[in-house]
């Protein structure tokens, strides 16, 4: 029955004809609706079906008719009559029918359609129905097969045989350990077993966010709930959790945060902690917390899942919890030990010798025919090692045309990381050169060969230097086995170990748990906020050394998060809620006080994610030029702020062109997306803690109403796009090109053109959709973001100064002092000193690495006569976010800031000598000032400013928002203090010996007159003798006259003649007496102005208000001069002598 026989007006290909049939079969409420994907599929199927039928008819369909009756006749006697039709018809094989009688009757009733000649006749309808039946049958088979395949795969997992046992154990015991090796299916199956056996409200933790997403996806698919929300995930910025969610995958950190809110975790019935053997900090802590919780909540079920490593440890920690061990599913792997010969072993300073690695590649080429597929995964310790070996392998690959060499480490762009999953063309193998990221975090299928260098770079924390350290170590036997296992995931494999078997035997059995390696600040803070008592006595599975806990407690105390007795302060309990480093949390809190919250939010977010600046693009001149306008020589956080703001603008202007914008500048856009998400989370946190005013409620303007409506429409479209994207996901992997290997870096170059050139057209419409952009627009109000960005793009220099002060107060005590000889050193040899570590350098990615001059003291001021050597008012410090030692100790994310001013405003301990010509800050920075009297004034202003700042901050923290006027006044004064304080001084780092003998010590007879004098100078303070240092303690951080001053023992007793400018009193004064007199002798009408002039004596002008009385010792005269004039005067004497 082909269309040929039909009325020649009927044309199956005509859209009108099809539309008429659509009215019969694909109406609005039908199973398949016109316009849907199924509908499109049907018509495509229909064409194939017609062709098939035509073909069959041509090749003699007559036979059938004769055969069928014959064969159904010859029925065995005595057997049951099945009542089957005599004639075979394929339609009998379909268990579905489609009833459209109602429509058909209606059409016939009308009758008009037949006269139009173009309407479908009975035959057309029959043909269409038959095709539809076959189509339905076909799609039924497809779906059923998908389901059957899924069930089959589940049943063939090793863990499937333990299904009942697991459920039984969990029902009977509150804690169960399930130990199984790679490939046994525990992560996907155990939650499902529990779910289907009636448990509900199950949480399953994962160490990595990405695993939460992929597991939730997989498990919801497997449990046939792909489009529901029974299975969900929750990570930092994203959740698919709803009230219907019964099984939730979440990160360990997030579960800990939930415990902070809900100590009994009453929302969960079962907790599964996966990958416990990885021994992450959060996981170890979580186990400790859960161990206590199990005692309080006997109904709670806890399942620990681990590789088959050190299982006893976990079982014993939970009082002998039962262990269920499941075999893994790995193919056999041949291990070949190939120790590196001594002449090829790199000494510490040399580059790695790539020859042993090359030999493995050559060996594979010789031994295994290219038709036998299988890729190579090579484990090295770090990025430098990777690029050395990569270069050598690349040369070999270009020569042989048999390898595509790809690097894999976390500082690569995500697009580059993603390449390792692409497929090599036939006859070519991938050689992936990776850090230990491929050991657990990234799983690549198709690996047959593994090369293990046996080395790993691991972060450790040096509490003495307060420094993180990235050092190379031998791996553990457990890691070594894990690396080996990567060769046997998809078939038998080979593992080349570039060390001797005896080395292997000497390896530690397990890696050092993170809790023994890292700074515990955040952990201790969290423990405090969870009310877990003394962190030192908490029963960890493997307790960290007491000294690291002590270091953390001290640090938190220095940061003001803990008070002297070790209890949380107000700000401390707030910091514990923020999922960031303490220093960054402090910035956020400080930023919320002044009207600077938007830029602070951006900076805090930027400092909490990996840098968006790709390292590989740094040497690309085009990128460097494009990045130039983003750079700020104030410091890296300002560069990040500029970058973020410019990106937000670029997003608005070009709508979707931000991807290209980023590529031009060598930026990883993903990081910017993370920033914008994190920023929003911070904002919500600040708001929920009452630190931010609620968005202006006010009346809604028609303009605003229109915008909201537009936005709603846009959101609906975006949701549609996202749904489409989600459906298309799982698109097939790309095939790599030979030239794609190596360091070939797409960043900076226009990749789009490149791929067009090869004419591969690999980007389909679906892939071209920037899903990140869609998510971004769904989550954020772009207009608002742009307003915010443009507002913080052009900060006035005063706002910028205040912002800098906030950042530095946050970062304190992470400060570094430039070495005094830096001005005479090469750019690459600039060194800095921190309190605990001498000779640190600036990380090459920092703006100061390329522009160190801005940190030098301007030359014209240096060596001014009378100002003494090194005297200047322009000394600067670097505040930094991280100090990390790799081959050198590097500081990164630095801000420069005026030294004296910052120290007086933020440091915890300022000590002075009697005439205030010498200050020692935090026991390690010594400032020698030329003008003690002036200094005393500056200190007094600083004390006042700090007190006011603290008062307003405390009010803010107690949710009594200070008045805008007070805040404005304070911020004006802080800025003036920071920018316009003019005092000349030298600054240096004290040696260890010097800092030991700083203080005069307690004095038997404290000078009460001094105390009286100080009270006048520092109104509102009550100086008390300091019992340890000696001198007088004016405030918690300032102690006067406690420094022992061997060179000038009697300075504070020396009186000089002085005339008061107000009352003209002329008599000898000690500096302190003079200050006291000045403070009490202010003419009443001048008082408010006076207070500020102390910090404002900056602008050198001849105006009399800035002049003051100066007594010159050389000519023994009292002169009324401005500070500049004093300097000039001093210079005269210097020149004369």
């Amino acid at each position: 029955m082909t269309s040929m026989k039909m009325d020649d007006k009927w044309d199956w290909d005509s859209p009108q004809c099809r539309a008429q049939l659509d009215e019969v079969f694909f109406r609005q409420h039908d199973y398949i609706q016109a316009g849907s994907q199924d509908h499109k599929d049907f018509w495509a199927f229909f064409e194939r079906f017609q062709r098939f039928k035509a073909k069959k008819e041509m090749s003699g369909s007559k036979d059938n008719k004769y055969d069928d009756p014959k064969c159904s006749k010859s029925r065995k006697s005595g057997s049951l009559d099945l009542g089957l039709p005599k004639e075979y018809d394929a339609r009998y094989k379909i268990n579905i029918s489609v009833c459209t009688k109602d429509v058909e009757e209606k059409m016939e009733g009308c009758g008009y359609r037949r006269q139009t000649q173009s309407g479908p006749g009975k035959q057309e309808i029959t043909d269409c129905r038959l095709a539809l039946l076959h189509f339905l049958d076909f799609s039924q088979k497809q779906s059923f097969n998908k389901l059957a395949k899924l069930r089959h795969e589940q049943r063939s997992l090793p863990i499937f045989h333990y299904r009942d046992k697991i459920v039984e154990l969990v029902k009977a015991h509150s804690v169960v350990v399930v130990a199984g090796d790679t490939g046994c299916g525990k992560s996907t199956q155990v939650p499902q077993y529990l779910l289907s056996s009636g448990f509900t409200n199950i949480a399953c933790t994962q160490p990595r966010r990405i695993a939460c997403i992929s597991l939730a996806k997989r498990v919801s698919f497997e449990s046939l709930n792909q489009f529901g929300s029974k299975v969900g995930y929750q990570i930092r910025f994203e959740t698919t959790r709803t009230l219907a969610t019964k099984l939730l995958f979440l990160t360990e950190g997030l579960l800990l945060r939930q415990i902070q809110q809900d100590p009994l975790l009453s929302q969960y019935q079962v907790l599964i902690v996966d990958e416990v053997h990885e021994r992450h900090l959060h996981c170890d802590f979580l186990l400790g917390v859960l161990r206590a919780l199990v005692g309080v909540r006997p109904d709670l079920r806890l399942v620990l899942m681990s590789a088959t490593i050190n299982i006893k440890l976990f079982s014993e920690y939970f009082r002998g919890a039962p262990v269920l061990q499941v075999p893994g599913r790995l193919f056999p792997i041949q291990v070949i030990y190939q120790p590196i010969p001594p002449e090829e072993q790199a000494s510490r300073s040399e580059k790695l010798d790539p020859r042993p690695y090359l030999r493995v590649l050559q060996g594979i080429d010789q031994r295994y025919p290219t038709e036998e597929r299988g890729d190579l995964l090579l484990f090295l310790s770090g990025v430098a090692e990777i690029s050395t070996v990569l270069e050598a392998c690349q040369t070999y690959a270009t020569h042989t045309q048999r390898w595509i060499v790809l690097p894999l480490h976390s500082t690569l762009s995500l697009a580059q990381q993603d390449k390792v999953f692409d497929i090599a063309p036939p006859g070519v193998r991938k050689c992936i050169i990776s850090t230990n990221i491929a050991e657990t975090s990234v799983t690549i299928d198709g690996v047959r060969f593994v090369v293990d260098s046996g080395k790993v770079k691991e972060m450790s924390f040096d509490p003495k230097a307060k420094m993180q350290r990235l050092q190379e170590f031998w791996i553990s036997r457990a890691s070594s086995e894990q690396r080996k296992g990567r060769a046997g995931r998809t078939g038998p494999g080979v593992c080349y170990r570039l060390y001797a078997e005896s080395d292997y035997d000497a390896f530690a059995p397990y890696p050092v748990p993170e809790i023994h390696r890292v700074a515990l600040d955040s952990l201790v803070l969290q423990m405090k906020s969870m009310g877990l008592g003394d962190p030192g006595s908490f029963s960890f599975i493997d307790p960290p050394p007491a000294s690291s806990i002590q270091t953390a407690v001290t640090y938190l105390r220095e940061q003001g998060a803990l008070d002297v007795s070790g209890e949380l302060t107000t700000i401390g309990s707030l910091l514990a809620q923020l999922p960031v480093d303490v220093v960054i949390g402090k910035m956020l809190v400080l930023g919320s006080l002044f009207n600077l919250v938007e830029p602070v939010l951006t900076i805090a977010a930027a400092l909490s994610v990996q840098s968006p600046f790709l390292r590989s693009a740094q040497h690309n001149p085009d990128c460097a030029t494009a990045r130039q306008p983003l750079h700020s020589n104030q410091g890296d956080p300002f560069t990040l702020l500029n970058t973020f703001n410019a990106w937000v603008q670029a997003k608005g202007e070009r709508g979707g062109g931000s991807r290209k914008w980023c590529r031009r500048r060598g930026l990883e856009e993903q990081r910017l997306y993370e920033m914008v998400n994190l920023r929003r989370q911070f904002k919500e946190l600040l708001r929920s803690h009452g630190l931010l005013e609620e968005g202006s409620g006010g009346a809604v303007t028609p303009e605003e109403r229109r915008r909201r409506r537009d936005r709603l429409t846009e959101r609906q479209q975006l949701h549609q796009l996202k749904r489409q994207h989600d459906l298309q996901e799982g698109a097939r992997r790309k095939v790599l090109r030979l030239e794609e290997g190596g360091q070939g870096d797409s960043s900076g170059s226009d990749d789009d053109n490149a791929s067009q050139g090869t004419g591969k057209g690999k980007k389909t419409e679906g892939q071209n959709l920037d899903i990140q952009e869609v998510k971004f627009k769904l989550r954020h109000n772009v207009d608002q973001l742009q307003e915010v960005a443009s507002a913080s793009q052009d900060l006035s220099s005063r706002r910028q100064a205040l912002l800098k002060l906030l950042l530095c107060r946050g970062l304190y005590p992470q400060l570094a002092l430039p070495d005094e000889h830096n001005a005479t050193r090469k750019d690459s040899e600039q060194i800095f000193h921190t309190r605990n570590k001498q000779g640190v350098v600036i990380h090459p990615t920092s703006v100061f690495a390329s522009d160190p001059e801005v940190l030098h003291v301007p030359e014209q001021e240096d060596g001014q006569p009378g100002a003494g050597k090194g005297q200047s008012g322009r000394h600067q410090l670097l505040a930094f976010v991280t100090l990390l030692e790799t081959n050198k100790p590097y500081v990164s994310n630095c801000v420069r800031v005026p030294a004296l001013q910052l120290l007086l405003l933020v440091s915890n301990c300022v000590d002075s000598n009697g005439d205030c010509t010498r200050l020692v800050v935090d026991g390690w920075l010594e400032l020698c000032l030329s003008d003690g009297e002036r200094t005393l004034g500056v200190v007094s202003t600083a004390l006042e400013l700090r007190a006011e700042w603290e008062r307003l901050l405390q009010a803010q923290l107690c949710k009594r928002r200070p008045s805008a006027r007070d805040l404005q006044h304070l911020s004006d004064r802080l800025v003036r203090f920071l920018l316009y304080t003019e005092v000349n001084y030298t600054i240096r780092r004290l040696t260890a010996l010097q800092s030991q003998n700083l203080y005069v010590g307690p004095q038997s007879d404290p000078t009460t007159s001094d105390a009286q004098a100080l009270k006048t100078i520092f109104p509102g303070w009550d100086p008390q003798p300091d019992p340890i240092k000696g001198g007088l303690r004016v405030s918690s951080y300032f102690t006067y006259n406690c420094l022992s001053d061997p060179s000038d023992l009697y300075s504070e007793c020396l009186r000089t003649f002085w005339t008061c400018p107000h009352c003209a009193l002329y008599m000898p004064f000690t500096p302190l007496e003079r200050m006291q007199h000045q403070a009490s002798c202010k003419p009443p009408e001048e008082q408010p102005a006076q207070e500020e002039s102390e910090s404002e004596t900056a602008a050198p002008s001849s105006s009399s208000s800035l002049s003051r009385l100066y007594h010159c010792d050389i000519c023994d005269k009292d002169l009324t001069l401005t500070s500049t004039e004093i300097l000039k005067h001093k210079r005269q004497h210097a020149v004369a002598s």
Partner: protein
Amino acid sequence: MEASAGGTVRGMFTCELCGLATPFTYFGQKPPNTRAIVLLEESYVLKDPFSHDREKFIVLGSSCTVCHKVVCVGTECSLFYTKRFCLPCVRENLDQFPQQIQAELAKKKSAPLHTDPAKR
């Protein structure tokens, strides 16, 4: 969201031959929201979990007309020819089936691995 997950689970469907076990959401000949579609046998039906549409369904299986065993629709377990027959019953009564069916079964026996990749 949960609404799109479709019908409530009515029970477990388990194939008595291959052991395939999965929940079903409807039993009968007229799955919900399918309008013109009618099933020609009383079937265990599951809302299609792989489709976003709430109306889409999968027929999981039904009872063999001869032995009344509950079997899945997989080609290794049963076939439909005007009625549902489990394969053992088909073999038993093979002579009553048209030659096309017999040929199909014979083909399957000779190369079972290629007929249904899902059942390997």
